[in-house]
C-alpha cells in the first residue's frame, strides 16, 4: 500500500514537473518568441459558381464573358469635376452574395453615393462618464473612453446620413432606406455581414474594427495644464471610413483618369471569417494573430463632372433616376433609328472594294454591282438606310477607263435601298434583269439626259423619280 502511495506521489511530482515545464515553455514561446503567423485572404472576382461553368461555353463571345467576369467586391465611380462641367460625384459599391451557395441568383450589391468631396472622420462616441479600465501587464491602468455598452451600441447602429444608399438586385437599383419608416434595404452598419467568395469558398466580412488614440489625462490648475497619464478614446471605423479611403486611393492613383484595378488592404477595417458548410457555422480562427485581407478595387476616375444620372453606377443621382443638370433638356423621343450608309465607288469593306465591275463586249462597257460580301453585310445589319451614288463622270472611272453602261443582273438584289443616284452624261443606261429587285427603293435620282433601258424588269418597287 505504501509502495503504491509512493509511486502515485512520484508520478504526481513527475506530472507537476512536466506541467511546469509545459507552462514555462508556453509562457516563453507566447511572450518572447513572438512567432506571428500571417494568413492572407485574397478577395478576387465575385462571380457566381454557376457562372464559372457558363463561362466555359464556347458559344459566348469574349465581350459577354468579360461582362460576366467583371464583378468585384469593391467598385468606385468618381467624377472629379476638374473640368468644371458638372457636379462632383463619388460612389462606392460592394458586390456580394445573399447565401452561402455563391450562385448568380444570390447576387446583391449595396452602395453609397456622395455628391461633393466627402471628408469624414471615424466615428467618435466620446462618453466622458464611462471610464472603463483595462489592466495592463506592466501594472499601469489606462482609462478608455468610448467603450461602454452605450458607445458600442451607438457605433454598431450608426449609419451616416450624408450619403445616399442604394441596393441592387435583378438589374435594378433602388433606395429602400428611410428615416422614419424603417428600412427595406441593406443598411451599411458595423454589424452588417456580407457573404463573399474567396477561393470558391464562402466567407463573411464585416467592417467592425476601431482604433484607440491617447487623448491625454490632463490636470489643469489656474490655466497651467500638465499630463498625468494616458487616457484613450476609442474611434470606430464605419463605411464612411471605407468610402473616404477608397476615394483617396482613386484620387491619388498614378495612372490618372480612366478605368483601372488596384488591390487594397482591408485588414485595418474588416474582420473576416470562413463559413463551414459541414457544421453550418463560421469557423473561428484562434491561431492566426494577423489576417491580411486584400481585395481588388475596380474604379472609374473621370476628370469631368457628372451631368446626368446615366453616369452614376446606380443610374440614380440624389435619389432621382432622371437627374440632369441641364436647364432646358431637349425632347429626344423617337421611334427608331437608322444608320445611314452613303456608298460610292470608293466604298470599301474589310479593305476590299464594295462594288465590282463586269465588262461586256456587247454593250462595250462595264456593269456595276454590289459584291456578295457587300450583300451579306447589309443583309445581316438591321435598320440600315443605304444610299448609293454612281457618278459616271467621276475621276475614278475616267482614270481607270471604266465606262459604266448599266447595273448588272441582280446588282443590288434584296439590299434595302433608300436612294439611288445616277448622274453624269451617257445616252443609255441599261438596267439588267432583277438589278433592283427586292430593294424597296424609295427615291431614284438621275441626270435628265440619261435614258434608262430595262427598268420594268429591273425592279418591283414603287419609287419617286427625281431628275437632277
Amino acid at each position, binding site marked *: 500500500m505504501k509502495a503504491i502511495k509512493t509511486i502515485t506521489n512520484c508520478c504526481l511530482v513527475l506530472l507537476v514537473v512536466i*506541467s*511546469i515545464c509545459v507552462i514555462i515553455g*508556453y509562457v516563453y514561446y507566447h511572450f518572447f518568441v513572438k512567432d506571428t503567423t500571417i*494568413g492572407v485572404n485574397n478577395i478576387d472576382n465575385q462571380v457566381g459558381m454557376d457562372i464559372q461553368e457558363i463561362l466555359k461555353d464556347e458559344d459566348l463571345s469574349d*465581350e459577354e464573358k468579360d461582362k460576366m467576369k467583371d464583378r468585384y467586391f469593391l467598385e468606385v465611380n468618381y467624377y472629379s469635376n476638374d473640368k468644371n462641367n458638372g457636379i462632383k460625384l463619388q460612389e462606392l459599391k460592394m458586390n456580394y452574395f445573399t447565401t452561402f451557395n455563391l450562385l448568380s441568383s444570390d447576387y446583391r450589391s449595396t452602395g453609397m453615393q456622395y455628391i461633393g468631396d466627402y471628408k469624414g472622420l471615424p466615428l467618435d462616441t466620446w462618453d466622458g462618464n464611462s471610464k472603463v479600465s483595462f489592466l495592463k501587464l506592466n501594472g499601469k491602468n489606462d482609462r478608455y473612453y468610448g467603450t461602454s455598452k452605450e458607445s458600442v451600441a451607438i457605433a454598431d447602429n450608426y449609419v451616416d446620413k450624408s450619403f445616399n444608399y442604394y441596393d441592387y438586385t435583378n438589374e435594378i437599383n433602388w433606395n429602400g432606406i428611410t428615416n422614419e419608416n424603417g428600412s427595406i434595404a441593406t443598411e451599411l452598419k458595423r454589424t452588417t455581414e456580407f457573404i463573399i467568395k474567396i477561393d470558391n469558398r464562402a466567407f463573411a466580412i464585416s467592417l467592425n474594427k476601431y482604433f484607440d488614440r491617447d487623448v491625454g489625462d490632463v490636470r489643469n490648475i489656474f490655466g497651467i495644464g500638465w499630463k498625468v497619464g494616458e487616457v484613450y478614446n476609442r474611434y470606430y471605423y464605419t463605411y464612411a471610413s471605407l468610402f473616404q479611403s477608397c476615394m483617396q486611393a482613386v484620387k491619388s492613383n498614378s495612372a490618372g483618369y480612366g478605368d483601372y484595378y488596384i488591390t487594397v488592404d482591408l485588414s485595418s477595417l474588416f474582420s473576416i471569417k470562413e463559413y463551414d458548410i459541414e457544421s453550418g457555422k463560421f469557423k473561428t480562427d484562434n491561431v492566426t494573430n494577423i489576417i491580411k485581407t486584400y481585395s481588388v478595387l475596380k474604379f472609374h476616375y473621370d476628370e469631368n463632372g457628372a451631368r446626368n444620372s446615366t453616369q452614376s453606377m446606380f443610374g440614380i443621382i440624389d435619389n432621382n433616376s432622371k437627374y440632369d443638370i441641364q436647364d432646358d433638356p*431637349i425632347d429626344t423621343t*423617337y421611334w427608331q433609328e437608322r444608320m445611314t450608309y452613303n456608298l460610292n465607288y470608293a466604298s470599301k469593306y474589310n479593305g476590299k472594294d464594295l462594288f465590282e465591275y463586269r465588262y461586256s463586249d456587247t454593250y462595250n462597257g462595264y456593269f456595276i454591282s454590289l459584291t456578295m460580301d457587300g450583300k451579306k453585310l447589309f443583309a445581316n445589319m438591321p435598320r440600315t438606310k443605304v444610299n448609293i451614288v454612281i457618278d459616271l463622270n467621276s475621276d475614278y472611272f475616267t482614270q481607270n477607263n471604266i465606262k459604266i453602261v448599266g447595273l448588272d443582273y441582280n446588282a443590288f438584289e434584296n439590299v434595302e435601298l433608300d436612294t439611288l443616284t445616277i448622274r453624269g452624261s451617257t445616252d443609255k443606261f441599261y438596267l439588267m434583269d432583277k438589278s433592283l429587285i427586292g430593294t424597296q427603293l424609295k427615291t431614284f435620282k438621275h441626270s435628265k439626259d440619261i435614258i434608262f433601258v430595262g427598268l420594268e424588269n429591273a425592279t418591283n418597287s414603287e419609287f419617286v423619280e427625281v431628275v437632277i
Partner: protein
Amino acid sequence: MTKAIGTILLYVLAFVIIVAAVFCGIQFYKEVRAESYVNGSIDISNRFSQESFNYSATSVVFYHDLYDETDTYTFEKDLLKVETFDGSKKTYQVQLNDFVLLNCEINSGSVFGVVNIDFYDTDGNIVNSAVLNISVKFLSNKTTLTLATNGKENASFLEQYFSDNGIRLKIMEIKQEV
C-alpha cells in the same frame, strides 16, 4: 492536522498546475502548429493592356467646352493601351453596336470614322439626323477614344440612343485569306 492541510494544499496546487499545463499545452500546440495560409488569388495583371480594341458602356454623355466656339460636343475616354495595332500592315474592321462602319480612315496608329444616324418619329418622319465622328488613337501608354458631334440637339439624340442601346465599339483585325 497542519501536515494534513499542507498535504491537501499541495495536492490542490499540483492539480491547478496540471490543469494550467493542459490549457497551456493546447495553446502551445496550436501556436507552434499554426501555419500561414492563403485563401484565393488575385490576378489583375492582364488589366493593363488588351489585344484588340473593345469599348463598351451603358451610356455616353457629351460635354461642350465653354470656350469652344464650334458648338462641338465631345465624349473623351482614356483606355488601356493596345499593343498590337498596326493600321499600316494589317486590315481592320470597325463595328459600332450592330453596325459595321465603312469608309473608316485607318492609319498606322489611329482610326477615324463617321457615322450618320437618322432618328424617326412614330409617323416615320425624320426628327433628327446626327453625324457622329469617332476617333481612336493608339498611344504608347494608353488608347484615347473621342466621340464628337455638332450641336446640342444631335448630342442629346445620340445620348438617348446610347442610353437605350448602350455602346459597343470594336476594332478587329481581319485575317486575309491566302
